[in-house]
């Protein structure tokens, strides 16, 4: 169901303006209550005992001594929480506490609730766990080569969790028509979200059987479902409140052990129980960027037109499924939405390894392939002697088109983005013209404005809003969306304020509370502005229609002449004639009773219906282009980035200042991934995290952060509220390949791997000096026993979005996320 679309105009009083966020004062005064800021009388403290082994069978757990410690009120083990859970219906492979097997260092095995944190910590030392160690698997390549012991007893084979093989048109025929074919192998290292707030949760269980959980989660709806499943409580007796998140970036999107454990401990003890993870434990929760090995073969004509692309990815998933099936699809989904790819083949594999589970980090599965494609295009441009910006501009996907893999592209501002960064950076004067050690590189990207399909299969809206208009003139918006710092609470207020003509700071916003607010699926996949925004728009327009009807009667004018602005409701033809907004509500309330409306949003149906077609579709795609300027010291290999120019097609800014903040923050996080951020593992087995701390996990400080020159491109999309598309994730994607391409421009070596550390640059420079291939990066992609491909002819070859006969091989359970109809 599509909402009525609003186009922004210069008449808008709220939309597009750089306003403060509705919670800005709370944030700058320290008044915002994050999960760990909450405390309840008689509250107990929870600590989790975590596995010291990467892979082991639990043969015995003795909790007797821990239970005897004064102050300890309860001890739980896996037996107390036997029901499995997981974010995706196809990967219900986690337990709140491991019942029999641990799968990574940090996997939780027992939990204590005690009267103080010190007592709870002391009690952990008194729990005796006997382990029988199993062989551990450290990398995806090792997992491919080592089918046993299996880390999980599901998946297509051995330690492979997921295999995908999709072919859109005959790529061999496409390659045969190419003037140049390149094959490149690249690697993208894993990284983690590193939110400044450590995850925390507080549970309360009252004698009437009601469970309340406050948590730093991006997805209260999914936590609600997981709690009902694992605790076997009626969902209606569970209330999940997502506190404002102190940073999320995807790292608080799964239902977590610690949330389930404190809920169970509250049920067992009858007292409130809180857990706050240590920074070390946050590293174990992880769910970050999958380390991904990629092989990409692209054929092009002399003018750079792509004739076919074949892309292979191998993801290191860590110990559990998490969002991994979706992540794997995402490594193949969005290659087609920037430049026209007439024939496309994607093979993706995810492996289980004995490391903390990977999942969705900002960009979810798409930064890795974007890095590969944009670096390869830079190499192709050089071989064809075409300027890399020009090459991209020539072959852009047209707006309002459908791609080879059946993604519907609406507004498409990438051309304008490229033009802006090329002009702004002085690209034409700099590219291949700067002195050695200095370089510029360009890359582009695209991202979803929300996933077209829900995580679990259902036909209900993805976002709902309720609106209450009070006779005082007050308006309250209720929505399940969760503010993780991106400003989603403010977006609701701005949109409602625009429609009802009231001050956005007069609007009360109630969000992220499963008792009070209609479901919104959560703050992930850059979905919230578009989806909750459309729901809010619909609710506000319905309220405006009711109020207009009664104001029109009073003013004795037709309904359509009623205007809402500046806190008044008045006659468009005689603006002096009107009533205050509060008076308009009173007129309506007197006539109709309590004034409340609802709005909801469901994304449009995607044209693809093959299995796997559910990952990739979005109501709208954002576009970004970036130019990075780098300085490379050939003696040390150190790469400095003074400036990044970035242009982002946001469709329409709802609040320009928060859009700017998202762009700059994305560039920052991309710079970290480009230069330094990595989940590094140590020890003989390479499965023990290398000192899980903020000091050892390098992230950019003020001293490493570059200057950012930002251009906002507004190419309104008909599916977005007022034309708005996403901004929270897309601008991260071009940064890593732009930096890599700039390093090549600076010193003539290719580092086909991120992070681009000094060691890698130096190794490549040494090879160059010796006359070898001036490159650092992986050289081979392992043999994988792929299933038969699903063959889906592209739209321009008569395809209808379905697989043709002779398609796929093995059958697997279908997931909500994978299914289209």
């Amino acid at each position, binding site marked *: 169901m599509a909402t009525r679309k609003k186009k922004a105009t210069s008449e808008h009083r709220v939309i597009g303006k750089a306003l403060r966020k509705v919670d800005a004062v709370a944030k700058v005064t320290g008044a915002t209550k994050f999960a760990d800021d909450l405390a309840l009388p008689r509250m107990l403290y929870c600590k989790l005992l975590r596995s010291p082994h990467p892979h082991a069978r639990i043969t015995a757990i003795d909790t007797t001594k821990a239970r005897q410690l004064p102050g300890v009120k309860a001890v739980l083990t896996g037996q107390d929480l036997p029901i499995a859970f997981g974010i995706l219906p196809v990967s219900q492979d986690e337990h709140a506490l491991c019942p029999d097997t641990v799968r990574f260092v940090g996997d939780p095995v027992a939990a204590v609730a005690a009267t103080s944190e010190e007592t709870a910590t002391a009690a952990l030392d008194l729990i005796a766990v006997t382990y029988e160690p199993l062989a551990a698997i450290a990398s995806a390549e090792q997992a491919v080569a080592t089918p046993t012991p299996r880390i999980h007893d599901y998946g297509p084979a051995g330690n492979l969790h997921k295999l995908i093989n999709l072919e859109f048109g005959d790529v061999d025929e496409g390659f045969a028509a190419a003037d140049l074919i390149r094959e490149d192998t690249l690697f993208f290292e894993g990284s983690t979200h590193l939110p*400044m707030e450590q995850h925390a949760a507080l549970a309360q269980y009252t004698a009437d059987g009601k469970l309340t959980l406050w948590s730093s989660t991006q997805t209260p709806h999914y936590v609600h479902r997981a709690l009902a499943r694992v605790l076997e409580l009626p969902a209606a007796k569970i209330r999940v409140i997502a506190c404002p998140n102190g940073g999320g970036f995807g790292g608080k999107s799964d239902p977590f052990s610690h949330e389930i454990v404190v809920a169970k401990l509250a049920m067992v003890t009858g007292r409130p129980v809180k857990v706050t993870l240590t920074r070390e434990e946050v590293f174990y929760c992880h769910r970050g960027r999958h380390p991904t090995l990629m092989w990409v073969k692209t054929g092009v004509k002399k003018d750079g037109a792509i004739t076919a692309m074949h892309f292979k990815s191998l993801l290191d998933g860590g110990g559990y499924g998490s969002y991994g099936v979706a992540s794997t699809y995402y490594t193949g989904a969005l290659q087609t939405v920037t430049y026209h790819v007439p024939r496309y083949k994607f093979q993706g594999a995810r492996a289980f390894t004995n490391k903390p589970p990977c999942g969705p980090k900002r960009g979810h599965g798409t930064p890795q392939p974007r890095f590969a494609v944009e670096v390869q295009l830079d190499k192709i441009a050089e071989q064809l002697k075409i300027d890399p910006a020009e090459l991209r501009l020539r072959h852009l996907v047209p707006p309002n088109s459908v791609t080879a893999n059946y993604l519907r592209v609406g507004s498409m501002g990438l051309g304008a983005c490229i033009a802006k960064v090329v002009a702004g950076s002085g690209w034409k004067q700099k590219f291949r013209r700067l002195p050695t050690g200095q370089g510029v590189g360009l890359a582009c990207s695209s991202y979803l404005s929300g996933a077209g399909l829900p995580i679990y299969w259902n036909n209900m809206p993805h976002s709902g809003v309720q609106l209450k208009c009070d006779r005082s003139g007050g308006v309250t918006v209720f929505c399940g969306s969760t503010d993780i710092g991106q400003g989603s609470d403010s977006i609701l207020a701005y949109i409602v304020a625009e429609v009802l003509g009231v001050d956005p700071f007069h609007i009360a916003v109630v969000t992220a509370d499963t008792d009070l607010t209609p479901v919104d699926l959560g703050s992930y996949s850059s979905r919230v502005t578009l989806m909750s925004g459309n729901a809010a728009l619909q609710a506000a327009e319905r309220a405006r229609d009711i109020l207009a009807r009664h104001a029109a009667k009073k003013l004795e004018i037709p309904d359509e002449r009623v205007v809402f602005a500046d806190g008044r409701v008045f006659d468009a033809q005689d603006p002096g004639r009107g009533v205050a907004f509060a008076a308009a509500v009173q007129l309506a309330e007197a006539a109709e009773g309590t004034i409340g409306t609802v709005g909801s949003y469901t994304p449009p149906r995607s044209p693809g219906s093959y299995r796997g077609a559910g990952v990739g579709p979005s109501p709208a795609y954002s576009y970004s282009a970036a130019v990075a300027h780098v300085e490379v010291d050939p003696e040390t290999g150190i790469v400095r980035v003074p400036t990044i120019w970035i242009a982002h097609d946001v469709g329409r800014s709802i609040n320009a200042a928060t859009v*700017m903040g998202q762009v700059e923050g994305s560039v920052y996080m991309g710079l970290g991934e480009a230069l330094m951020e990595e989940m590094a593992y140590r020890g003989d087995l390479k499965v023990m995290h290398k000192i899980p701390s903020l000091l050892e996990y390098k992230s950019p400080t*003020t001293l490493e952060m570059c*200057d950012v020159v*930002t251009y906002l491109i507004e190419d309104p999309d008909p599916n977005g509220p007022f034309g708005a598309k996403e901004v929270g994730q897309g601008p991260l994607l071009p940064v890593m390949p732009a930096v890599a391409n700039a390093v090549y421009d600076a010193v003539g070596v290719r580092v086909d791997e991120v992070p681009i550390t000094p060691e890698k640059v130096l190794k490549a420079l040494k090879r160059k000096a010796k006359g070898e291939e001036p490159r650092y990066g992986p050289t081979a992609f392992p043999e994988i026993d792929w299933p038969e491909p699903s063959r889906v002819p592209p739209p321009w070859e008569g395809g209808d979005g379905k697989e043709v006969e002779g398609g796929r091989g093995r059958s697997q359970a279908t997931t909500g996320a994978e299914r289209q109809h």
Partner: protein
Amino acid sequence: MRFDLNGEPCDVTFAAHKTLLEVLREDLGLTGTKHGCELGECGTCTVLVDGTPVLSCLVLGLACEGRRVKTVEGMADGPRLHPLQDAFAELGAAQCGYCTPAFLLAAEALLAANPRPARDEIKQALAGNLCRCTGYIKIYEAVELAAARMRGEDAKPATESLYGHP
């Protein structure tokens, strides 16, 4: 222990092993001071002791006997925000807001010593504080805006910081 907390005398009793961070958050209920690691790595727990930024997770509460401690709760002048708070709100320098109290206090100490800091001096002064949301840029701009206003200038945010470059 008696000390000066946000300009008022404060008497508090606590277990001797507690850090200033724990005393503030747990014994005094001032949860505006946050924590990101409790190991002195992230700067998120920064407060001012006698006007100097310190990591409250590394300072024993008892070490603050007789000292002046300032937290984010003490920045505003009654209902009026401190110019730094106002500028952070205006520019969106607080996204998730978790590191914000620490940045505000570190910036306040900087501006007390240097009312007209250059961009590089701001970067140096804030180098011990991590922020994962903003890329620091809106924070620099907010510090510069507040500094100008505190010097009595009628400063406004640059159009390109709020709306991007033309």
